[in-house]
C-alpha cells in the first residue's frame, strides 16, 4: 500500500512538471493555433539567464523574476520577429499548416546551439530554493518534497491566472478570437498581430516558470528540457489543447500513469507508453479530456 502511495506522489511530482510546460504549449496554441516546439528552447534560455542571476546575486527570487521576464520577452520577440513574417507569407494552402511546425522545430535547434556556444554543453548545477528532502509522516519519508509541492502550487497558480485572463477578460476574448478566426477578429477591430504577440509573451513567461522550477535541484544543459517537451505535448493532447485545466489534468494523469509504469514495469517502457497514450488519445478522443466536440451543421 505504501508503495502505491509513494508511486502516486512521484506521479504528481512528475505530472505537475509536465503540466507547467503543457500550459505554455496550450497558451501559444490558444493564442495563435501553433504548436510551439521551440518552447523548450525558449525555456532553456530563460533558465540559463536565471542560473546566471542566481550565481551573481545569490537570490533565487530575483532569478525567478528574470526567468519569467526573459521567457516573456523572448516569446514576444520570436512572434513579432519570426512568426508574424511567417504568417504573412505562408498563411494559405498546405504550407500554412506545416510551416509553423518546421519553423518552431528549427528554432529549438538554433536556440540549443546558441545556448551551447554561450554557456557550453557542460551541465550546470541549479540549487533548489526550498528543501528537497521528502516530507516525513511518522517514521515514513514520502517521495514528495517542498520543491515538489512548490511546483504543484505554481502549476495551479499559472493555470488559474491564465484561465481567468482567457475566460474573463477582454484581452482573453481577443486572444481566442485572433486564434480561432483572425479575419473575423480583424473585422471586429482587434489588432490581431499585437494580440498574437501578447499570447506568445504569456506562453514564454509560463515556459520560463516551468524551466526554472523543473531545473531546480537538477542539472541544466542545452538539451535538458527536450524530453520534457515531448511529455508536455502528450499531456496537452490528453487534456485537450484548448484547455488550460486540461493541460494540468493531462500532465497529472500522464505523470501518475508513467510513474506506475516506471515503478512496476521498468524504465524502458515509459517512453513507449507515453507514445501509445498519445496515439490512443488522438484516435479515440482527439479533442482530449476537456476538449469540446460536436457542432450543429446548419
Amino acid at each position, binding site marked *: 500500500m505504501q508503495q502505491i502511495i509513494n508511486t502516486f506522489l512521484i506521479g504528481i511530482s512528475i505530472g505537475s512538471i509536465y503540466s507547467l510546460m503543457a500550459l505554455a504549449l496550450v497558451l501559444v496554441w490558444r493564442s495563435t493555433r501553433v504548436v510551439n516546439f521551440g518552447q523548450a528552447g525558449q525555456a532553456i534560455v530563460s533558465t540559463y539567464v536565471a542560473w546566471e542571476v542566481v550565481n551573481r546575486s545569490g537570490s533565487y527570487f530575483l532569478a525567478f523574476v528574470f526567468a519569467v521576464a526573459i521567457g516573456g520577452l523572448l516569446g514576444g520577440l520570436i512572434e513579432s520577429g519570426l512568426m508574424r513574417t511567417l504568417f504573412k507569407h505562408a498563411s494559405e494552402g498546405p504550407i500554412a499548416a506545416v510551416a509553423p511546425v518546421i519553423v518552431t522545430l528549427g528554432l529549438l535547434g538554433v536556440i540549443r546551439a546558441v545556448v551551447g556556444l554561450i554557456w557550453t554543453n557542460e551541465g550546470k548545477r541549479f540549487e533548489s530554493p526550498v528543501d528537497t528532502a521528502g516530507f516525513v509522516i511518522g517514521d515514513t519519508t514520502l517521495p514528495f518534497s517542498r520543491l515538489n509541492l512548490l511546483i504543484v502550487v505554481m502549476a495551479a497558480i499559472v493555470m488559474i491566472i491564465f484561465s481567468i485572463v482567457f475566460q474573463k477578460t*477582454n484581452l482573453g*476574448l*481577443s486572444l*481566442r*478570437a485572433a486564434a*480561432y*478566426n483572425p*479575419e*473575423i*477578429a*480583424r*473585422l*471586429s*477591430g*482587434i*489588432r*490581431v498581430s499585437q494580440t498574437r504577440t501578447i499570447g506568445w509573451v504569456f506562453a514564454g513567461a509560463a515556459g520560463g516558470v516551468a524551466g526554472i522550477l523543473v531545473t531546480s535541484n537538477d542539472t541544466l544543459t542545452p538539451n535538458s528540457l527536450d524530453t520534457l517537451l515531448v511529455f508536455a505535448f502528450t499531456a496537452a493532447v490528453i487534456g485537450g489543447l484548448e484547455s488550460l485545466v486540461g493541460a494540468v489534468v493531462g500532465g497529472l494523469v500522464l505523470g501518475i500513469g508513467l510513474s506506475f509504469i516506471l515503478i512496476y514495469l521498468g524504465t524502458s517502457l515509459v517512453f513507449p507508453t507515453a507514445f501509445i497514450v498519445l496515439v490512443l488519445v488522438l484516435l479515440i478522443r482527439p479533442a482530449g479530456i476537456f476538449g*469540446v466536440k460536436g*457542432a*450543429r451543421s*446548419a
Partner: protein
Amino acid sequence: MLKVERLVVEHGAIRAIDGISFEVATGSLAAVIGSNGAGKTTLLRTLSGLKESKLGKVWWNGREITGMKPEDLVRRGISHVSEGKSVIPELTVKENLALGGLWRGNKSELAQSIEEVVNLFPRLGERMSQRADTLSGGERQMLAIGRAWVSKPSLLLLDEPSLGLAPLVVEQIFATVSMLCRERGITIVLVEQNAMGALSIADKGIIINLGVIVAQGDAKQLIDDPALRSAYLGY
C-alpha cells in the same frame, strides 16, 4: 457618402475588379448584384481593407480610406459581415457579440449595444451562453449582423446574408437590414445573389459582371428594366 473611384483589384493575374466607380449616399442602401465570380465579394473585401486594391481610391464621409487595415476601418465606423455567417463557432453568442465592441474599451457601452442586439433579435437573447456552432443558419446570420451592430457602424458591408437560409428567415434578415438603414440611418452596401430580394429593399442597385459595372441607378428602375431583368437579374 461612400465614393469608389476607378477601383482595380487583382487576384494574381486575374483582374477581379476592373475600374469600378460608384457612389452610395449616406443613410441609403445600395444592393450590389451579380452572378458567381462577378467580383461582388472581392469588392466588399476591398472596401473593408481585407483585400488590397491595385489602383483606384475609396472615400468614406470625405476621407480617403484606400489601403487602410480592417481594424482601423472599424474605428472609422465601417463594419463588414463577410460571406458565410461570419461568426466564430467556438465562442459563445455573447462572446461573438462582445467582439464587435472590444475596441471601444467601454464596458457599459458594450453592454448597452448587446442589449440593443437582443431587442433586435430576441432569439439570440435566449442563447447567449451557447456556442455559436449550436445555432441554426439563420441564427448565425443574426449573430453576425449583431456583432457588426455592436461595433456601432455608420457604413455596413453585408455579403450575401441570405445565402443558404430558408425563405422565411431571408425575409426576416432583409426586413432587419432595411430597418437598420431606414430607422437607424446606417449606410448599407448589400451584396446579394438574391437580386429581387435585395433590390426590393434597396435605394440603389449596382449590377456587376466580370468585374465591371454593367448598370447602376435607382433600384426600382433596375427592377422594371426588362433588358436588365432578363440579362442579369434572372427573372
